[in-house]
């Protein structure tokens, strides 16, 4: 992996250096000596669709490992659009509640086996109970996350159902990010 020592460099040099390396090599390990540079390099990685891990190595130094930039490019390359699965309820379909629960669990547990994998799964309204409550579902979502599937959960909904503390997988999102994903992506709504 390409190593960049951006310690001692003024803003925005660490970002510009990292951008060049990422475009050429698809991954980079960046060393910076302040929190602002670390945040900015992290933002760059995320903006470029790469995976970013930020590690605080000492009082001042941070190491950022940015990988899979090319993979993200390739994945999106197929239709040009991200595949988004939008789950609005904790039940699948209309009918008996018990059946609806069984079906949604089965649906999410099966997702990890399909090809190509979706890029994002978004939970909204009572759907947000799924990444909080059922262990089997949570494990499946964790596995999907390991394979670069982004799991997003509506913050307003978590708040409404009082589940904010109970979210076990993925990130809390907001209306803007969700609408933006639905607008730009190829959406399968459940």
């Amino acid at each position, binding site marked *: 992996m390409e190593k960049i020592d951006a310690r001692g460099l003024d*803003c*925005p*040099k660490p*970002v*510009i250096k990292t*951008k060049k390396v990422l475009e050429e090599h698809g991954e980079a390990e960046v060393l910076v000596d302040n*929190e*602002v540079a670390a*945040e*900015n*390099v*992290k*933002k*760059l990685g*995320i*903006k470029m669709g790469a995976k970013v891990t930020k590690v605080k190595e000492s009082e001042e130094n941070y190491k950022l490992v940015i990988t899979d930039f090319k993979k993200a490019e390739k994945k999106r390359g197929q239709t040009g659009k991200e595949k988004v699965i939008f789950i609005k309820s904790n039940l699948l379909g209309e009918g008996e509640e018990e059946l609806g629960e069984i079906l949604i669990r089965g649906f999410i547990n099966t997702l990890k086996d399909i090809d190509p994998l979706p890029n994002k799964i978004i939970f909204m309204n009572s759907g947000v109970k799924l990444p909080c409550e059922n262990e089997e579902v949570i494990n499946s979502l964790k596995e999907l996350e390991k394979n670069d599937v982004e799991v997003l959960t509506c913050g307003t909904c978590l708040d409404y159902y009082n589940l904010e503390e109970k979210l076990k997988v993925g990130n809390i999102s*907001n*209306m*803007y*990010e969700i609408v933006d994903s639905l607008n730009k992506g190829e959406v399968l709504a459940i």
Partner: protein
Amino acid sequence: MGPNALAQVLRQVSFENSDQNLLIGIETGDDATVYKMNDETALIQSVDFFTPVVDDPYIYGQIAAANALSDIYAMGGKPILAMNIVGFPECLDQSLLVKILQGGADKVKEADASMAGGHTVKDDEPKYGLSVTGLAHPNELMKNSNAKPGDKLILTKPLGTGVMISAIKGGLEKGGSENPAVKSMLELNDKPVDILKKYKINACTDITGFGLMGHLTEMVKGSNVNIKLNTSEIPIFDGVIDYAQMGLLPEGGYANKENYKNMVMGKLNVDPDREDLIYDPQTSGGLLFSVPGKIADKVISELHNNGVNKSAIIGAVKQGEQGIILS
């Protein structure tokens, strides 16, 4: 200096100002200081300087001057005198300094004021700015601390100069006057003041290194009001949101966020990228007016018709707990 560090220092200094004619001093964090000479005339004084924001020395000089002059306009005044403040390294070509000073002189002339002198020191990097003196009628001063419930907030220039300067420094944008943010930084804030003088406005400030949120915070505290900021209505220079997402946020923006985020009482569907920009430090930023709600639309159309065409209504002043609600 960052707002936090500066406040910490100032707290430890005792300022004993007992002169009744000092109308606006250090206490309210206003844009400039104001001294009442007599019932007809108030003297406005301000100083501002910084390191280069673009490579072109003539443009840098003009921007630094426009930025310093802005403090006088933000008080509702008219600049009359300016003096140069210069830090310059011995190793640099003197012709650069000629161009910087020419930029400053031309801007001061455009503002109908006189360049009266200055002071230079040897320095590791160039620094330039002005000390400016202006005049206003004591009854026509535009304070930052008089916003009233029912007011609408009008911003006269887009936000994002901090991020754009990073993009220019990073070589992703050109720093010439064809860049809309550079063009905006070159513009004096005289026009909006001329227009707004005809109306009864309640408060005014200009947006500087403390960002929109820093100045809203001063307005909220000084006026004892609650402000609802409509982030989706805030004009932002083209390209800036992309650059912000890429991590071209200047350090000052992080410091502003750290210092002013506790004023945020609530958020309703705020685009996080736009949220970053309300903390972006501005150079030669626009004016922020608080005007009675019923004249806001009229003021905006007059601003638009007179060349201040990026101005927009970005929020409202409410009665209530001191704080800012983002939507």
